[in-house]
């Protein structure tokens, strides 16, 4: 545990150094020093933290109470297997995104106060680490607040642009609306248990005595509070605004590690509410249905985007939905005493969380490279980037294949585990439950299919074909040295797939520690079955990789010494092909938009020239944020109207203000008497 504390101290120390640099007048030298301090602090802290959680046995919980307490509550840190799993993306992505960030920010030494940026980056890492380890209500809320506030300043990096400023405010509003529910949750928990400790045998035994209504209320508060952070539909609206606005290394960290904190919170609270008492059956169903709705919303909206980073942001919503589906089916299994469903459901959720951190980190960093190289992430202007930046193209392709759940990459393994959990539906009691879970399996199939289409578009349109505009004709290709964080993430995508049989027992261990199985369940036999299945997948994946390499070798042997001719992609036999002959991102989306118009909230505009010899036609697809327009804007306008109506009380008459005090005093006195 001391190593973990050392990692926290590294984050805090480096943050303080950056803060002291931030108050000084920014110069090129100071910016360079801040860049160095930031990346050193983040990577050293992350490396030590990673060592702390990997060097001790995975199942052993670590706990420490720091001697300097808070005014209320205690500085109690505890890392159990669940916490360890959620800390992994924080440290891995923390280090890699910091390195990538340092490379990108080296071009902005004079335009921004980098010390401020690194201060908040390190605070975000500190906040996330503390959130996953805090075992005290007050400490948790403090850490949550640090974690929620820091991204506001990180997203606001290019604050001269109005769109960026709006995005950061939307983020801040969403984060704090969620925090209101969390405050209610933890205050209620504190009031009813009489202690600020979140998870201890005493707290668990008190919570097990709660009435079902109270436990359900706590569950709903957790779902609303943590769901806002996780991007649960319909509270996901901040994600597609914040991620495109933030610098890419920040988007990668937010999407790969920070939104996981929401999922962690939901799992943690559900775990302490279910440890010694059976959870209500509707909790699992709520998670499953919300997860499915979130994933479908995310994927449909993502398909209609032409901004690569916005597409990735919506894809994060989709992936968070898949994770919640895993948690939902796991909880349904736990409620109905179905061990297979419990283990596979929760393990799929946790596995997908790790996978998502790897491939989404890779994709966001890749999108950042595209932005840096071409100056835009609008796919309508890109094309043919693979030829100009082959390594980046390859890495992006690996990320896209992983997230589209294609074997031999990691996305396939977690969705396979989720499908296994859902396939156990026939063992549930009651046909409505069986049909419900099987329908979710159909939903998962739909989501996976559309995800494949999405990433064919996300990779194909910008990277394949020929340049569509001047943006992709002249590119500043990144140096291979600056791409090594992406290479590591791509390797991680492969490793998470090939080592699935070794990783799964740890996930199952984390599930058993948070949702302990009754003694009657045959844990060893299930683990054996699962490991056998996953080993087969690993072997098949290895075979696939080997065959691909063999094919490439065979191809190069066949082509040796022969003259090769290079032709434009999509030329399709035309003598005079032009970039306009290629599929555009709108053209890619339009067929699905035709029959999923309502679900996707897409408007496709087609302008055709109906002459015998048509000159120019135009197709555009847009997905306006319906939820903001139809729900959030009227809601906040209503709140503003009510608040304005309350201005009647703020009339400027001082003596009437004092009357308010007198009335309050009298009411309090009367209340005190009764």
């Amino acid at each position, binding site marked *: 545990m001391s190593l973990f504390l050392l990692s926290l101290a590294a984050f805090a120390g480096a943050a303080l150094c950056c803060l002291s640099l931030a108050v000084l007048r920014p110069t090129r030298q100071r910016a360079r020093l801040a860049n160095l301090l930031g990346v050193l602090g983040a990577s050293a802290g992350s490396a030590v933290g990673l060592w702390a959680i990997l060097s001790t046995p995975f199942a052993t919980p670590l706990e420490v109470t720091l001697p300097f307490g808070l005014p209320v509550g205690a500085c109690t840190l505890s890392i159990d297997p669940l916490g360890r799993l959620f800390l992994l993306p924080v440290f891995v992505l923390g280090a890699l995104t910091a390195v990538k960030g340092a490379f990108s920010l080296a071009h902005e030494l004079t335009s921004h106060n980098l010390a401020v940026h690194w201060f908040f980056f390190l605070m975000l890492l500190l906040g996330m680490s503390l959130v996953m380890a805090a075992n005290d209500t007050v400490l948790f809320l403090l850490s949550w607040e640090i974690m929620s506030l820091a991204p506001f300043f990180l997203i606001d990096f290019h604050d001269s642009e109005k769109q960026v400023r709006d995005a950061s405010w939307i983020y801040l509003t969403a984060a704090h609306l969620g925090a209101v529910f969390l405050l209610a949750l933890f205050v209620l928990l504190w009031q009813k248990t009489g202690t600020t400790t979140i998870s201890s045998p005493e707290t668990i035994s008190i919570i097990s005595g709660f009435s079902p209504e109270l436990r359900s209320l706590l569950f709903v508060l957790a779902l609303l509070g943590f769901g806002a952070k996780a991007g649960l539909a319909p509270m996901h609206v901040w994600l597609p605004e914040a991620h495109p606005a933030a610098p890419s290394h920040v988007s990668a960290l937010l999407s790969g590690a920070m939104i996981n904190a929401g999922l962690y919170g939901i799992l943690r609270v559900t775990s302490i509410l279910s440890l010694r008492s059976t959870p209500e059956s509707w909790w699992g169903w709520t998670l499953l249905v919300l997860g499915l709705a979130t994933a479908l919303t995310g994927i449909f909206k993502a398909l209609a985007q032409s901004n690569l980073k916005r597409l990735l942001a919506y894809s994060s919503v989709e992936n968070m939905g898949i994770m919640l589906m895993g948690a939902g089916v796991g909880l349904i299994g736990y409620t109905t005493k179905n061990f297979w469903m419990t283990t596979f459901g929760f393990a799929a959720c946790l596995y997908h969380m790790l996978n998502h951190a790897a491939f989404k980190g890779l994709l966001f960093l890749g999108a950042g490279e595209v932005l840096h190289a071409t100056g835009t992430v609008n796919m309508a202007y890109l094309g043919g980037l693979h030829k100009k930046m082959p390594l980046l193209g390859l890495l992006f392709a690996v990320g896209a294949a992983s997230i589209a759940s294609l074997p031999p990459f990691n996305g396939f393994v977690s969705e396979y585990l989720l499908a296994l959990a859902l396939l156990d539906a026939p063992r549930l009691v009651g046909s409505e439950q069986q049909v419900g879970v099987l329908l979710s399996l159909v939903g998962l199939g739909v989501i996976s299919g559309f995800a494949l289409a999405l990433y064919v578009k996300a990779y194909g349109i910008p990277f394949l074909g020929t340049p569509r505009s001047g943006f992709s004709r002249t590119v500043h290709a990144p140096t291979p040295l600056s791409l090594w964080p992406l290479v590591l993430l791509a390797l991680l995508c492969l490793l998470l797939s090939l080592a699935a049989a070794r990783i799964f027992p740890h996930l199952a261990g984390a599930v058993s520690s948070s949702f302990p199985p009754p003694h009657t369940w045959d844990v060893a036999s299930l683990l054996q079955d699962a490991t056998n299945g996953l080993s087969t997948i690993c072997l098949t994946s290895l075979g696939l990789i080997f065959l691909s390499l063999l094919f490439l070798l065979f191809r190069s042997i066949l082509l040796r010494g022969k003259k090769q001719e290079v032709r434009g992609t999509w030329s399709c036999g035309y003598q005079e092909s032009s970039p306009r002959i290629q599929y555009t991102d709108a053209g890619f989306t339009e067929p699905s938009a035709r029959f999923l118009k309502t679900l996707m909230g897409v408007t496709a505009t087609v302008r055709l020239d109906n002459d015998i010899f048509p000159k120019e036609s135009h197709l555009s697809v847009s997905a306006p944020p319906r939820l903001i327009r139809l729900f959030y804007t009227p809601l906040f306008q209503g709140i503003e109207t009510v608040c304005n109506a309350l201005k009647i009380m*703020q*009339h*400027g*008459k*001082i*003596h*009437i203000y*004092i*009357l308010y*005090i*007198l009335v309050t*005093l*009298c009411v309090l*006195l009367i209340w*005190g*008497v009764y």
Partner: protein
Amino acid sequence: MLFDSCLFLLLVSNFLLLATPHIRQMTKYTALQGILLALLLLLFGHTILTVAVLLIKGILLPGLLWHTQKRLPPDSLICPRKLAAFDVVCGMAGLAFAIWLDDRLIVTQELFPPLFLSLGLTTLFCGFILIIGRIKAITHVIGYLVAENGIFLLGMPLMTKGTTWFELALLLDVFVAVFVMGIAINRISDSFASIDVARFRSLRD
């Protein structure tokens, strides 16, 4: 006997404050309240505080108010008579509420001499009523002083050796507050040619 007379006179002074429309008269009653408070303190046996209260509440603060009034035009020192009648009715309600509370606040029964709590609360309410009911800035200062007298009365039986310093600090606080308000009123009358607080609304954002 002397103690009860003091309490009675304090109560009367409260209602006289509410009933009079003349600000000069109100200042005199405030001075009377200060002297009565000092007398009560003497009966409780706090000699140092007696001197301090007599100096600050009995002489210094009313003196300051008197000095301020001299600088103001005479017609600005009279409040509408109708308001004063309404204030007395409110004061009566305050007295009734205080007596009602006195019966019910069980914890304080042994601590306070009979009627002491009611008087303290009534004085506090009267101070508030003066602030709420009158529109001149200077009556706000007087109301603030009267409300503070009520708080002082409530704190008096709780006094032990240690809390003397607390009470002295309270006195200092009131002194500074009134001093600042005195300056503010002077400045307001210089700038706005009126000390009518209703006109402060124009300063609202």
